[in-house]
């Protein structure tokens, strides 16, 4: 900005948004006086902003519907809490009963799941369950011991469920899913901002591999093969964050096979 001839588009944007200190603000004004094209551009941006406010500003002036009252939501939440607790208890019983019955489709012959099949299954599971508000998981993360025991039994591996709290993610819970040739466990984690990641795990032996990234449809997947498990971590987060989460998971997930 000291060099008067170099005024970037970023400077102009910052000027429009009032992000510049007064001295630079004045510098831009002087520049705009001599540059009609940029002056025009800045004026157009300001018009856009005025138009946006004309379009949507009135919404904030309206009285919000009663269902959006935080006090009311909190009250209903307290009222429903006992009912919900009973429903969860009932569904746990169902899950346990279902657990002894085996799952449908087990006998179907399916081709060996390649890494890519694994990743696309994991992405589909992520896309299906993360938007769920009421029933994102079958077994709640608070019931960690039960979850570990149940999933270990169904996957025939001694799993230890990764603790990602060092990265700010707490366990929402898990569910069991059919997968090509086996069952899969889906573990869901959430951070304080409501961003969810899922860890998809299938029993699969093979050579340990490095971590692979794949990206598509706004989701990033990190997949790897541990000693006895195929694992895919899926989320809509920066790669570095996912990689950190994947490494933490890798370290704790596979505490050895049952075999």
């Amino acid at each position, binding site marked *: 900005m000291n060099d008067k001839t170099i005024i970037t588009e*970023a400077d102009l944007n910052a000027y429009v948004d009032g992000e510049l200190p007064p001295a630079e603000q004045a510098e831009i004004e002087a520049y705009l006086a001599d540059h009609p094209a940029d002056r025009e551009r800045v004026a157009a941006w300001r018009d856009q902003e005025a138009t*946006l406010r004309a379009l949507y500003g009135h919404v904030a002036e309206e009285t919000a519907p009663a269902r959006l009252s935080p006090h009311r939501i909190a009250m209903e939440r307290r009222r429903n809490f006992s009912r919900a607790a009973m429903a969860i208890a009932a569904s746990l019983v169902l899950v346990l009963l279902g657990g002894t019955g085996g799952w449908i489709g087990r006998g179907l012959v399916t081709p060996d799941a390649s890494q890519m099949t694994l990743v696309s299954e994991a992405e589909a599971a992520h896309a299906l369950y993360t938007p769920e508000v009421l029933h994102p998981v079958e077994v709640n993360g608070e019931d960690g011991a039960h979850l570990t025991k149940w999933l270990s039994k169904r996957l025939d591996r001694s799993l230890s469920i990764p603790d990602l709290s060092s990265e700010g993610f707490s366990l929402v819970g898990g569910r069991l899913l059919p997968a090509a040739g086996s069952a899969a466990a889906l573990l869901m984690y959430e951070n304080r901002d409501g961003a969810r990641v899922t860890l998809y795990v299938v029993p699969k032996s093979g050579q340990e591999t490095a971590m692979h990234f794949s990206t598509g449809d706004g989701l990033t997947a990190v997949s790897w093969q541990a000693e006895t498990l195929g694992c895919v971590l899926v989320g809509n987060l920066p790669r570095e964050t996912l990689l950190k989460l994947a490494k933490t998971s890798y370290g704790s997930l596979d505490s050895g096979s049952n075999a």
Partner: protein
Amino acid sequence: MSSFLDDIETLVPALRRYARALTRNADQADDLVQDCLERAIAKQSLWRPIGPVRPWLFKIMINLHRNDRRRRRSAPEYEALDVLPFEPASPATQGARLALAETAAALDRLPAEQREALLLVALEGMSYAEAAGVLDIPTGTLMSRIGRAREALRTMVDGTGPRLRSVK
């Protein structure tokens, strides 16, 4: 507890405004705000925000909206977009109404990440630092998204029809 609820209550109008601009559908917008509030209230005991509540709530809402969009993409359905989100209160000229509708439609054609960024700054009046925090991106990335959004809108709106600007 109740001061937390009071805090978020003061933010409901802004959340509704932002949600309306994101979804351009009044019912869908209020559903989104309701989900966001329920999520925030359910989480507050576990994750009582350390810093200010506003960026936290917007972050939750944007995450929910992204999840929702992904779900809608995999299960497409008809949804009515409000062509004009309201009857202008003041008798507007045909031209001004057209300008509003045109901008609303152009906004809809922006990539989601640019729309999210531009609306935080231009509509909600957030500073670059706050908006970058909400979106979890560096300030430089935020600035480039806003810059691209503005230029794209300008091309879309200016490219067709007459100049829509009223002289100030």
